[in-house]
Every structure is written in C-alpha cells, then in structure tokens.
C-alpha cells in the first residue's frame, strides 16, 4: 500500500465514542501566568481534538522545555515533557516506530529555534509525520525575560540592557528553507483561525509546522497587538489559496500546493520592512514521509522471506565462514 496520498491520521485508530473537550483535560492544575496566550491555545486544542475522532490513547504530545512545553501535562493523552530542544528527535522515534499514533510536538521559539534548531530543521526536511506547534512569544519566559531567537533587533531585555544585536529568525522562512511540506502561521487569540490551521496541519501527512503568535503578558506583553483585534485591519493578510498577494512590487496568486517554494518563501518575507503580516497556510505539498518509508523498508525485508524471526536470527548468527567441530 502506498502511504503517499494518505492523510496524516489515516493509520491512527478512531473512536466510536462521542468525545468532548473535557475528555482531553487532565486532572492537573494549569500553571501558566494569568493572561498567558498558552491558555487560549490549550483550550483550542482541547476543543479541537474531539473533532479528530481518534482513540485518545493513540495520541501523543511531546514537548521540550519552556512555558509552552508544560502543555502535555494538561492534556489527558499520552505525553512526554522532555528536555530542552529535543522534542522533535524524540517524536521522530515515536512516529517512526508506530504508524498508529498521532504525534504532536509542542515547542517555543527558544526551544525550537535556539537550542533545538538542529532537530527542528532535520525533522522538517525528513518529513516525519509530526504536527509541530511552535508557540512564538519572542521572549524567554520560563527563565524570566531574556531575548529569544525571534526577538527583534534592538530589544531591551534582562540580558540585553542596551538592546539586542541578534538578527532574528523568521520561523516560517526557516521552515520553508528546511523544505518543510506544511508551513502555517496563526494567532493565539483567533480561535477560529487557530482551529482551522490545526485541522489542516493534523490532516497533513508529513511534518507540519504551525507557528502560533502567542502573547507573554509578563515579559513581552503586546508583542502581536498590531495583528490582533479591530486594529489589525490591513496589517493582517489572511492567506487563502488564490489570494492575490504583493511582495516587493511583484503580484501573484498564492498557491500553497506549488512544489517550488520560491513564491511561498517570498510571501514569508512580506513582513520584512512592512507592517503587513501574513497568517494561514503558506505551503502544503505531498512528499513521502520518513517514517512511512522506513516502515516500508522493514516490511519489504520482513516479507522477503517466510522464515520466522528465530530462523532468521539463526541464519544471522551462522553468517560468514563457519566450521564445525564434532
């Protein structure tokens, strides 16, 4: 069977039972700061997961370190709160060894783009069947307010008293550069948009990166006010397939399914030097996933012989030049 055209959740068993958000709520007290954008994302995910209709025990959330990485504790699924930056690697092992699991990574701008930058780009280029939620608040929250790899130049923080001299990453540009097959951006406060992007990401077979603009009310309050609420106005460009977009004087119709990522990358640069911010799905293309192909190689080798595992082991142990002493 070719797994190429399957949806992201095709091999995950479904549940007959009617589920609701409460089923996905663990008994642990949520411990984010009052007003944190993480609450909105958690609520959206808890409300959205029942729509997938999956068996709860077949969903795994893996996180790294940081405020957002506490996320798995609050969901009543399988979950692992791992170590700083390594969640994509751990999730790769889970997804590759188990086609029947829906595997999610929850990470932040420091976790995914600083200490874990290497794992993120490699998970994306391999196209492991993961849904990666990157909470971007442009600040280190859990360590109390240092600048992050997405903080703007000149930012004054505890560790940059005269302004940051680090040039920031644009996570969408980075993901496109890493040849991710699904790249999107959404906003914590826009429940409807957030949910629609999550649905598209979950349905994608392969690595899906969703950047979520998330407000940190303590250390970087209002970082995304320009694109929130009524003032957002023309600042916010809601991407849809076929939308006419203009960047750097060039105009074209947005096509997230275009295999050549050049236009999608150009679109990700729209906010550089302008006050316009695109949100929505930048890229959504099909490419065989790492985990499907790894399993196919194993399955092909297993099917190549009718010998049992024990018989094959016996043959392995007797490989090469042998001699017998009687």
């Amino acid at each position, binding site marked *: 069977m070719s797994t190429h055209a399957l949806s992201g959740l095709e091999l995950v068993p479904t549940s007959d039972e009617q589920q609701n958000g409460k089923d996905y709520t663990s008994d*642990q007290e949520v411990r984010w700061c009052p007003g944190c954008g993480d609450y909105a994302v958690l609520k959206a995910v808890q409300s959205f997961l029942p729509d997938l209709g999956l068996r709860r025990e077949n969903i795994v959330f893996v996180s790294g370190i940081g405020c957002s990485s506490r996320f798995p504790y609050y969901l009543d699924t399988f979950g692992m709160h791992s170590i700083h930056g390594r969640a994509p690697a751990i999730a790769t092992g889970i997804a590759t060894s188990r086609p029947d699991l829906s595997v999610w990574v929850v990470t932040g701008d420091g976790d995914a783009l600083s200490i874990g930058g290497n794992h993120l780009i490699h998970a994306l280029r391999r196209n492991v069947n993961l849904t990666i939620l990157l909470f971007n608040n442009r600040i280190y929250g859990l360590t109390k307010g240092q600048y992050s790899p997405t903080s703007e130049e000149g930012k004054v923080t505890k560790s940059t008293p005269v302004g940051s001299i680090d040039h920031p990453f644009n996570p969408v540009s980075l993901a496109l550069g890493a040849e991710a097959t699904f790249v999107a951006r959404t906003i914590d406060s826009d429940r409807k948009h957030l949910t629609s992007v999550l649905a598209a990401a979950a349905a994608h077979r392969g690595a899906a990166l969703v950047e979520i603009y998330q407000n940190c009310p303590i250390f970087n309050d209002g970082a995304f006010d320009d694109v929130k609420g009524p003032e957002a106005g023309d600042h916010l460009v809601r991407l849809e397939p076929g939308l006419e977009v203009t960047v750097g004087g060039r105009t074209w119709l947005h096509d997230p399914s275009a295999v050549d990522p050049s236009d999608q990358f150009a679109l990700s640069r729209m906010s550089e030097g302008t006050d316009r911010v695109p949100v929505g799905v930048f890229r959504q293309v099909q490419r065989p996933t790492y985990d499907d192909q790894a399993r196919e190689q194993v399955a092909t080798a297993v099917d190549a012989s009718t010998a049992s595992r024990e018989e094959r082991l016996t043959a392995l142990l007797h490989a090469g*030049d042998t001699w017998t002493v009687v």
Partner: protein
Amino acid sequence: MPQQVTRLDRVVIRFAGDSGDGMQLTGDRFTQESAVFGNDLMTLPNFPAEIRAPQGTIPGVSSFQVHFADHQILTAGDAPDVLVAMNPAALKANLADLPKGATIIVDTHDFTARNLQKAGYDGDPLEDEQLLSNYQVHAVDLTGMTVEAVKEFGLSRKDAARAKNMFALGLLSWLYGRPTEPTVTFLERRFGRAPHIRDANVTAFTTGWNFGETTETFAVRYEVAPAPQAPGTYRNITGNLALASGLVAAAVRSGLPLFLGSYPITPASDILHELSKHKGMGVTTFQAEDEIAGIGAALGAAYAGSLGVTTTSGPGVALKSEAIGLAVTLELPLVVVDVQRGGPSTGLPTKTEQADLLQAMFGRNGEAPLPIVAPSTPSDCFDAALEAARIAITYRTPVMLLSDGYLANGSEPWRVPDVADLPEIDPAFATEPNHTSPGSANGADTFWPYLRDQATLARPWAVPGTPGLEHRIGGLEKGDGHGNISYDPANHDLMVRTRAAKVERVADSLAPLVVDDPSGSAQVLVVGWGSTYGPIAAGIRLVREAGHEVAQVHLRHLNPLPRDLGDILSRYDRVLVPEMNLGQLSLLLRARYLVDAVGLNVVRGLPLTSAEVANAIEELM
C-alpha cells in the same frame, strides 16, 4: 624441493603496510584461513584515523596482528614473531615492537631513496648489519613479482601492483600451511564483477604460495596444529559484529522491534552498518542529525514500545548525557553502547582505552545512577549485549554497555549458540489500571505510572495505544506512585533514593562471581573489567608458569557491583587492578570497599601486554 617442517605451538604475525595496501584485508583473510584450519586465535587491527595519510609515511602505516595457536589463547600477542612489512615506513614503525630473532619479510620494491626519506631513513636499513644480525630478514621484491605474475590480465601497473597483498598472503599461507580454498572462494566472490581484477588477485595469491614452495629463501615451513575445541559450529567474529548480533538476539528473545538511533562515530559505526542490514528481523535504524537526536529517537521508540538502542563512543556519550539523565528519570528501557576510544576530546579515534568508566558512572547532572555492563572479549560482546538489554527491559532503565576499540575491531573464534538456549526477556507491558482511586466501586480504575514492582522496583512500561493508561511523564521530579509533578522535599529525597535502590536491585539477579584461584591460597588478587580480561589472564598464566600463585576475578557488572565482591576482596592481602586508564575502577573499589587497590595503568591506545601484567603481579608478591 623437500622442506624442513618445524612445529610451533603458537605464532604472532603482524602485517604492516601503507593505509592503501590492503593490510586489514590481508590480515582478515589469514585469520579466516587459520580459523577454518582450527587454530584458536585473536586479532588486533591497528590503523590510523586518517583514511589515506600521505603515502609512504609513518602516519600512514596500517597493521593487522594475528595470534594463532594449537591451544586456547587469550590475547593478540604481546609482540610479533613475524613482521610482514610492505614498505620502509611499515618497517620503521613496527621494528621496535619485535623481539630479537624475529622474522621480517619485507617487500623491497619501495626501498627507493625517495621512500626511504619519506619514512625518515638516512640509508637503506636492509643493508644495516645490525638489523640483519638481530633478525631473520627475508628481503623479497613482492611487488615486482606480483606485477610480473599478473601481466597477462592487462591491468595498469598501478592496479597490478595492488595485488601485492595477495602475493604476501599466499607466501605466508604457504609458510604456515594454511588452507587456500577459503581465500580463493572469497576473491572469486568479492571481485566476481571484475574478472581481470579477480584473476589477478587469485594469481597473485597462488604465485605467492608457489614462490614459497619453489624458492630457497625459506628453508623451513611451520606447522601450528589445530587447537582442541568443544563440539559445535564456530565462526570468527569481531566485537562490533557480536555486539550487533546480541542486540538483534535480545530483540528476538523479548519479542520487541529493535530501534537504533545513532550518529556515525569511530569505532562504533560498524554496529550501525550491521544493524541496518537486518530489517527483516524488525530492526529499524535511524541515522540521526547528531548524537543527541540519536538517543532522543531511541528513547522515543522505547517509550512507544521498542527495544531502544543508541551506539556511540566517548565523545558521543558526553553529548547524550542530558538525554541519558532523562531516561533515568523517565525509567524507560534503553541500551547505550559506548565503544570506548582514547580521549579526552577527539583523542585517539581508532585506538583503544577504558577511560569512560567514570563518565558512565557519574557523567550526568544530579543523582542519576544506571547499570553498567562490560564485555571481556570480542565474542563476549554478544552475551553482554543480551545482558544489557535484559537489565534495561526488566528494570526499566538506561543501561551503559562499555565496549572498546580493541574489542570492537579485534576478533576471535566464537561457538555459535542455539537461539533456543538464549535467555528470554519478558517486556511485561502494562495493560490495565493499577491504582484504585477513593471513589472507585470496581477496584483499580486509574493508572499510576510510578507504582513499582516490589521485587525489582521497576515501574510499569505503559506504551501509547493502551486504552485507559494515558499518562504524562517528564524530566521534572515526579510524585511517588502517581507520577505527577512534585516539588515536595521529602518526595524528592524518596525518589532519588528509590532510583538508586532500583539500580542496586539488579545485583539480586547476578550469578556469583567466579574467582580463578586454583589452590585457594593465593595472596594477590587481580581484578579487571572489560577488554583487559585477555592480557590479565595471559599475564596470570605467565606468573603461574613461573611457579607462583595468583588469583583473578573479572567484572562484567560495574554498576551495581556484585554483592560478593566485597568478601572476595577481603580474602586477599594485595589487590591489583590493571586498567587502560589512570585508575577508574581502582577509585570505585577504594571508595566502596576501603580496599588498598594497586593500579597498573597504561594508556597507550593499545591493549595491555601479558608481560606488563605479569611484572606488576610479581612486584606485589
């Protein structure tokens, strides 16, 4: 021409040449011939970290030593009886290791002014009276004869000359009466697609053999009779191959898929190569973007129900340390293979050392104990891998398996076990709730991930996909039993002690140590671990042959240490601990047992010699 045949009980041959001369292959073929012939043997490859150092220079010299005998042997030999040197640099680099009277077979072809200079010789050593009087030197133009012999195949001069290693192998095979069929078959298989190359190599090999037979250069042939061996099927096996096979065996005997997450590193990469060939046995290999991702993916796979394994060398363990600590606190099964090499830092990538013991013991933040297992010989890597997997799965813990460069690339005959005789390992996955909440009417209704087995202190292994067992684990301290985040001081103290106690419980499952003390009245005990087993046992033989008594105990489990070790140590007046480090096991034994352990510490990137061990023992008497 009839030749005199001299019987020997053992011989050590070292093949040495330039990195591109095919010395590893030559040594390996001679080894296979000797194995099939029935000798006991051990090998020691020794090669530079550079793939092709400048040709003809000392740094470019690659060698392969094989020790074969008509009786059971324990090492690859302290010093060669025969050196085969394919160029001036090979002669110069190895001469100091030869005892007086040793045989040198040297290819004179490259003894040109330019090559002599590259090797750092002022004049031609083959005209040096001292060399000629101290050693039995056979100076032969191996390359020239090879090129002449393979002329008919129309190869370029360069390609023709490349068959010189097979000429040398043919000559040595004749000299020691080795069977030739295995090598001819091997060459036909290897070069089947290139008939000219195949024919040239086979011809060079047989011409080398015939040269020995017809020339008067060699007046004596040698015979080393087969060694008595227990009935069974045997093969020659390197440590890395045995270790990879042991991991596959552990997966089969536990009924688990095997998942290897690994990043290429010398001298461990061959395990990755080998396991990548065994997909048909449910083996998945993941070549990760770095060492951390290698262990991360293995840990993820373990969480999801595979036998998770990561393979590396010392520098890789340093990078994996944080993830190993996570595995300790998550209490998931994981095998971490460290094929040790010379350190610190990049150190000596292709040379052996045992200096990662304390890194394995203590190289993590916090109190993060884990079991440590070390194989003692190349073939023992098979059993040690199975044992590491047994402990990991049974006790839900990462286990460090400490091999080293000598074991990894060295080889010896191995009696192939019956699969049915290998230990079975029960993963005993959790399948249902294990805790009764206060309001429950029908018994256990919730799942507590840190509720422990009372005998082993292991926690349940509940894999995703098991209904009703949804739970969260992580690197933050967990509450005893329920596993939720806990910052409670008393709970942390309890959890730290419990994790340590669990590792100590592994000792309950260990067989008593075997003390080799034939008379029971020795006063000196030699304690070793890992690959020093052979040199220590061989050194002890020498001491006993000299009429002295000495006892030996060798440790496979470094953590926890076996329960009877303390008693054993207390029975001897003196304790000697030979190690290829500056005294790491000594430190542990001194701390744990207050024993005045004396170290024999050598870090030359090479195995200890039996003579060094014997001298150290005698100094203690």
